[in-house]
């Protein structure tokens, strides 16, 4: 049975293999040429540290101008790969059989419908995941070489970095694939399945973006007014920030706005002392920031993956059920 599924899926598998080979070749070549350019312009130090010199240096500027678009394209490839797998492998997997009536051939042999479905799923999904993980690793390796001169300077919580790291791409792929398979069985139309997959995936990715960070526990950092919390300057994800009153409760933003407006009058170019003192008098003595440190990004990825993974499992169970009901 696995042989049948493999033989039927062969064109897609060859395409995947070609993508892997071409993708790997491109990344390896680009990375080595980038590495050359880093060493030849003497920027090796700037890969690991953001120093004053690195941000003003002309060759660093040239490097960024030359490489940032290419690095972002590498990220984009991993961002889009899950939905492409859903569209071109997940959606047609069953829809095409039902559309062309070839499912009848399998359904009238002695293999059970569930086994038929599972073998098709495994043969289509496992190679796609392997290729995805390989390309994800290659792009990560390339981005790491650029270090803080590349997109990674924005930290793990930045939208494009988050979407291509840890288990998130795998979970997105599972979800996109499962939507495609399920809608394909229900509607029996490849084109409809592809359109719904694209729509559902895009909507969910936008809708669920802050849900992940909302369900995680945050840490609170408190500083005196006039200073800014370190969390808002490093790669941590700041969920909310503002001022605390004497009881340690966050103050409503409109009250803060009024007080800050009132204190603006005391502000002088020489120093902030009077401005800060004014804020303290108006009960705005302390600032806070609720944040998730970058070191906990892996937890956010696990939450993310469990949401998408659970949806994918539900959809695949639904696919099996719909196939058994198919008549």
């Amino acid at each position, binding site marked *: 049975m696995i042989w049948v599924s493999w033989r039927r899926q062969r064109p897609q598998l060859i395409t995947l293999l070609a993508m892997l080979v071409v993708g790997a070749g491109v990344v390896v070549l680009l990375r080595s040429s980038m590495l050359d350019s880093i060493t030849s312009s003497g920027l090796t130090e700037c890969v690991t540290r953001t120093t004053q010199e690195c941000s003003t240096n002309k060759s660093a500027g040239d490097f960024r101008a030359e490489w940032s678009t290419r690095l972002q394209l590498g990220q984009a490839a991993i961002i889009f790969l899950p939905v492409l797998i859903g569209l071109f492998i997940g959606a047609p997997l069953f829809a095409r059989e039902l559309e062309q009536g070839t499912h*009848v051939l399998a359904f*009238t*042999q*002695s293999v059970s419908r569930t086994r038929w479905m599972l073998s098709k799923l495994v043969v289509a999904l496992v190679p796609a995941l392997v290729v995805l993980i390989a390309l994800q690793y290659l792009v990560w390796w390339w981005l790491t070489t650029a270090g803080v001169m590349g997109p990674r300077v924005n930290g793990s919580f930045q939208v494009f970095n988050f979407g291509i790291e840890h288990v998130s791409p795998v979970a997105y792929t599972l979800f996109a694939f499962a939507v495609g398979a399920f809608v394909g069985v229900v509607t029996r139309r490849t084109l409809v399945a592809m359109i719904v997959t694209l729509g559902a995936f895009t909507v969910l990715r936008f809708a669920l973006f802050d849900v992940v960070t909302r369900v995680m526990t945050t840490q609170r950092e408190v500083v005196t007014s006039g200073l800014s919390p370190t969390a808002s300057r490093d790669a941590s994800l700041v969920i909310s920030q503002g001022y605390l009153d004497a009881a340690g409760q966050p103050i409503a933003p409109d009250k803060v706005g009024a007080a800050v407006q009132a204190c603006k009058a005391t502000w002088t170019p020489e120093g902030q002392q009077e401005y800060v003192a004014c804020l303290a008098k108006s009960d705005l003595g302390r600032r806070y920031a609720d944040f998730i440190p970058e070191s906990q990004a892996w937890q956010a990825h696990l939450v993310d993956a469990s949401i998408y993974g659970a949806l994918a499992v539900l959809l695949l169970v639904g696919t099996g059920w719909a196939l058994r*009901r198919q008549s």
Partner: protein
Amino acid sequence: MNPLTATAVGKRYRSRWAVRDCSFTIPEGKVVALVGPNGAGKSTLLGMAAGIVRPTTGGLSAFGTPTAGRTHPDVSYLGQNRSLYHDLTVRELTRAVGSMNDRWSTDRVHEVLGLLTGVDHDAKVGTLSAGTRTQVAIAMALGRLPRLLLLDEPLSDLDPLARDETLRIIMTEVADRGTTVVMSSHLLTDLREVCDHILLVDEGRVQVDGDIEEVLARHRILVGPAADESSVEGTLVSATRTARQSTLLLREAAPTPKGWEGTEPDLESLVMGYLRASRERRR
């Protein structure tokens, strides 16, 4: 255990009943001609017998096992659209179908394909002619070594020579393995050669069910004067009347009255009579 039993089976597509309240039993070893006008429900009936169409009411059982949701291991089905994997070669297809079956004989498939002229084992199924595809599909069905063979329009896209070949293969299968066959077709002359049982469906209902010889013996065709039909006794199935004479198809007819000429119908005129009657009823 009978190869196929239908108990008040019905199938509704949205508001239209394709098959309604059908009950019949097909005894072992029969070659059954399933006939009826277009849209009579023949394909739906065969689909339900194969387990790929779910009945709305009642049910079918093959060798005593209900067929809904799965194909009985002893049943092979040839669908009207001959579902085959078009991107595989004949050889690959044989391997594919074989790997989807617990009981399978590649030798049987090769034997059947060997009897057919001009099937290239390394040709893609999609490049074959419609007729050859049908023959390949029949070979696949026989590879399952079935005890009941369900064929939906097996002769429809075959040229006369290929039709002859295919019928011969089916007949050999029946003779060698005692397979029960149910085949739907519009080609009544061909059916007459191979079938010994008739199941006539119309408007989703069984109209005639029985051994062809008996069914024919139960019917009479009477030709007589158009003016006076009062002396004719029996159940009138259909009639064609011209100004001068009437031709009547009767079931359970009494002895031929005076002035009329009575003959036993052949299969073709019997089926034609029923089809004509159904068309007139629908009008």
